[in-house]
């Protein structure tokens, strides 16, 4: 996909128009996409693809992935969610997954921020330092 200035500009404008009160608005996104498909302006496929990518990155910024070696106790999960919401806002969505390869501890990722307390990472760091 070759992205030119025009495509980048339109996609950015579409993204800007997709918010209501600082939150992504599904209704707006749907109508914007629909009108784009109907009107078919120049490079509309590329615009849609870049718009999709920008939306994905925006959604990732408001989505927390919490990985742990074992299933977390419900109260721990709730406390983590509460704390994250306090930091990133109430519209944050959470996703809990279990990965035994982590060996122990928790890894939380929101956008490009990562908090890592897993045993696997610590062992890797030890391996590097030695």
């Amino acid at each position, binding site marked *: 996909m070759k992205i030119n200035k025009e495509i*980048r500009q339109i996609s*950015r404008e579409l993204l800007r128009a997709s918010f209501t009160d600082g939150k992504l608005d599904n209704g707006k996104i749907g109508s914007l996409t629909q009108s784009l498909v109907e009107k078919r302006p120049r490079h509309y496929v590329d615009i849609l693809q870049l718009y999709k*990518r*920008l939306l994905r*990155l925006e959604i990732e910024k408001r989505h927390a992935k919490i990985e742990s070696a074992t299933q977390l106790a419900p109260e721990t999960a709730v406390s983590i969610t509460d704390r994250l919401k306090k930091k990133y806002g109430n519209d944050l969505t959470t996703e809990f997954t279990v990965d035994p390869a982590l060996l122990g501890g928790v890894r939380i*990722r929101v*956008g*490009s*921020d*990562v*908090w*890592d*307390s897993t045993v696997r*990472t*610590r062992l890797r*760091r*030890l391996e*590097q*330092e*030695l």
Partner: protein
Amino acid sequence: MSSILEEIETKIAGLKTSTTKSNVGVVRETGDGVARIEGLSDVMLNEMIEFPNGVFGLALNLEETEVGAILLGDTTKVAEGDEAKTTGKLLQVPVGKALLGRVVNTIGQPLDDKGPIKTETFYPLEKIAPGVIKRKGVSQPVQTGIMAIDAMIPIGRGQRELIIGDRATGKTTIAIDTIISQARLNKAAEESGDKNYRPLYCIYVAVGQKNSNVARAFNVLEREGAMPYTTIISAPASDTATNQYLAPFAGAAMGEWFMDNGMDALIIYDDLSKHAVAYRQVSLVLKRPSGREAYPGDVFYLHSRLLERAARVGEEFGGGSVTALPIIETQAGDVSAYIPTNVISITDGQIYLETDLFYQGVRPAISVGLSVSRVGSAAQIKAIKQVAGKVKLDLAQFRELAAFAQFGSDLDAATKARLDRGQRIVELFKQTQYNPIPVEEQVAIMWAMQNGFLDNVPVDRVKEFQSKLQDWLQTRKEPLLRSIREKKQIDDDLTAQLKSAMEEFKTTWQ
């Protein structure tokens, strides 16, 4: 043994600090030594990025949704979907005296079989050059041991002198000769216990060269005993464009350590044409806009910021210096091409080597008319100034007359004398490679020439006269050479001694 256990213990204790926060991204595409990473919202320009499998990258393009990074090390270990994280560090190389005598790659890892480099100090590759307040004028000479250069195009400590010429005109040889000369001077000063002499350490940066060329340079330096004072940084043609682009900056960082610690260093960038080509490749795969000859817009800044790091700092800052000898290869003698004009305008002068002269047997093939040192005679010892002050003018007049004399056979005596003198100067300045001449011998030889002791020597025997004179001076007149070296100028006493020595030699010479 117990210290090792303690060290491990502290490392384990360090790991107990439970949670680490980092900034990560995902590799979206990789290829040609470049990776595009989505995420990494906190990354800074020129920051190191860590990939899995111990590969590192350098963030060069910060865009709206992604980061363009150049990869260092094995690029095949980075795959799409890999997680990359910021490190908060700049790329740095080991520096210090432990690097002397070693051959290293761009990031300072040893390429020779002499074991790991034991140094605690690291310097970042990119550093802002010393400012106006820290600097001092260039006034101490770099004795290259090449008579034509020391006499006519003197190089000072802290100067940037370009060596420019076509392929196979002896550019690298001038650089190697200079390194050998420094090593001999350093060694002589060490042996004599001369505390006033400031040793000059050399760093040879080979960018985009054939490995065989680097090996040859290494062998010559080792054979001549110059390696104990020299570091070779090798980013050969088979290395990635990234490493070739970074190698000169690594050399500058290593040189700066000497300067910051009050010592003198000489860096040879061999060569910056290939460096510009490597940077062009990196820029194009990073999709930066291209300009003239497809070089990126900041190719001038690339070289100006590199060469600006050559400096001589004031006594209150240690009084150290970094001298740079960049090399540029021209195509068919065209100095007006893009990169050559850039580097000519940045440097404080150039030594221009000509193919025609080279094939006429004038080696080093220095074109006196086009070569210049903007520092001038400030970087010469007084004795050289006394004997070589007029040589450049003599040679210029000789060339003018030589062209004119081709058309007529009847010449007046003055013109003929000038032509004869010119021919002898040209002969004297011919010099075999890897054979630098100490400054005191240069003074004696040029004094003999200036005072007419060579006038009755046939032109084709001038070289023979010179080598026999050097041998004779070394074996029979060592005290005279020593006093030239120590006094650094020719006074009446030395003039008398030189006169009697030359007269004595002339009686023995057939």
